[in-house]
């Protein structure tokens, strides 16, 4: 029977210098902290990272940013990470920022084998200055090209060995979209169940999109409730 479980080092060796890497997660939930920690150890550099946000200092992709491994960051909002903001302001990293749902659609379009989407979001703003505007059916539209990456790193709650995934609560966010949009998809997962035991109606992402499953033995504190966000 198909078994996509892979050792973490084996899976991550497919991430090469100057690769583009999509990273799941909105804030902490869905962020593959352990994959990112190993990517840091592995020494990969000159990366283009695509993530909704920049995590927070000392966590997740911020470790890669802080270590100077990132050339370009494509995101929606990095306001919770002052280190990332400072790197951007000092032009030590290149940052592309998109409206959040448009970032999601660009990634989804890449995953769906489309070339792009057309939107009116931002048409009346400074965004249009840096965009291709097309005329369709008597109106204007911003053309947003699809986004794909060499690799996607995502976190899932449960998987079967064929790669079918289930996400937990608000940890779903960008994960399934990114898994559709990368040439190689590496998933860290909290729990693996035998193939055939998941309800086919309850699967959030079909296994066809998953290349490697890295089974986590234990979670690091980054996965826990973050004290700085407890009111």
């Amino acid at each position, binding site marked *: 029977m198909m078994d996509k479980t892979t050792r973490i080092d084996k899976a991550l060796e497919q991430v090469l210098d100057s690769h583009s890497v999509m990273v799941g997660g909105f804030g902490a939930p869905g962020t593959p902290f352990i994959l990112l920690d190993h990517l840091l150890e592995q020494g990969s550099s000159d990366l283009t990272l695509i993530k909704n946000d920049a995590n927070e200092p000392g966590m997740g992709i911020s470790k890669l940013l802080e270590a100077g491994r990132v050339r370009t960051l494509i995101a929606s909002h990095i*306001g919770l990470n002052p280190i990332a903001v400072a790197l951007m302001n000092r032009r030590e990293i290149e940052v592309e920022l998109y409206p959040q749902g448009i970032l999601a659609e660009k990634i989804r379009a890449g995953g769906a084998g489309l070339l792009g989407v057309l939107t009116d979001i931002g048409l009346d*703003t400074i965004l249009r200055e840096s965009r291709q505007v097309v005329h369709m059916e008597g109106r204007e539209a911003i053309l947003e090209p699809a986004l794909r990456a060499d690799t996607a790193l995502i976190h899932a709650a449960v998987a079967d060995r064929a790669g079918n995934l289930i996400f937990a609560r608000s940890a779903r966010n960008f994960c399934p979209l990114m898994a559709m949009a990368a040439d190689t998809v590496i998933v860290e997962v909290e729990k693996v169940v035998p193939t055939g035991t998941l309800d086919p109606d309850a699967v959030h992402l079909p296994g066809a999109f998953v290349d490697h499953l890295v089974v986590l033995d234990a979670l690091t504190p980054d996965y826990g409730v973050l004290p700085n966000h407890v009111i």
Partner: protein
Amino acid sequence: MSFKEKIAARAAREVQAGQVINLGIGIPTMIPDYLPAEADVFIQAENGILGIGPRCRNGDEDRNLIDAGANYVTLAPGASFFDSAVSFAIIRGGRVDLSFLGTLEVAANGDLANWIIPGKMAPGIGGGMELAQKAKRVVVTTSHTTRDGAPKILARCTLPLTARACVKTIITELAVIDITPHGLMLREIARESGLEEVQEKTGAPLLFAEGEIPRF
């Protein structure tokens, strides 16, 4: 009651039963505390939740359950989760009835500017632009003036826009103001404030109906 609580409490009264509402960061996240139990609304969060429940109590945090402002939240009955594309389909598809947003500036024609101060602050766009442009109704909740006392409500925005002519109502600690085709219409005024004060702190002329202006 702080000025923020006052704004949140007043804003809660704009909500109608059965609505899907979205709460921006800051003051808007305080609004649920002031919603009556019978409000029966669905609170949506951009990161993929419909049906946020009452404020999360210390110790009840779920590591996988935060809102778009990264605050731990709870669930209401009938909640559901979905990915970020579906989440913004709800927003851009016109299924958010009411979006509460904070702002840097808002203009008399409803223009909103709340995401960038060129050369100074540009952390990203987040979900605000789509909410501002596509929610059925946008209500701005904000302090009436900046910390320096300068008006935030202006004849025209000076900062780059988030969306054009999108705001329907502005709620501050001093006033409730509707954006109308004729300009800013003062709908209500705070108990502890006066008409002169509100006009003085507002960067565009205020219209108001004949007679007593309701207080809040």
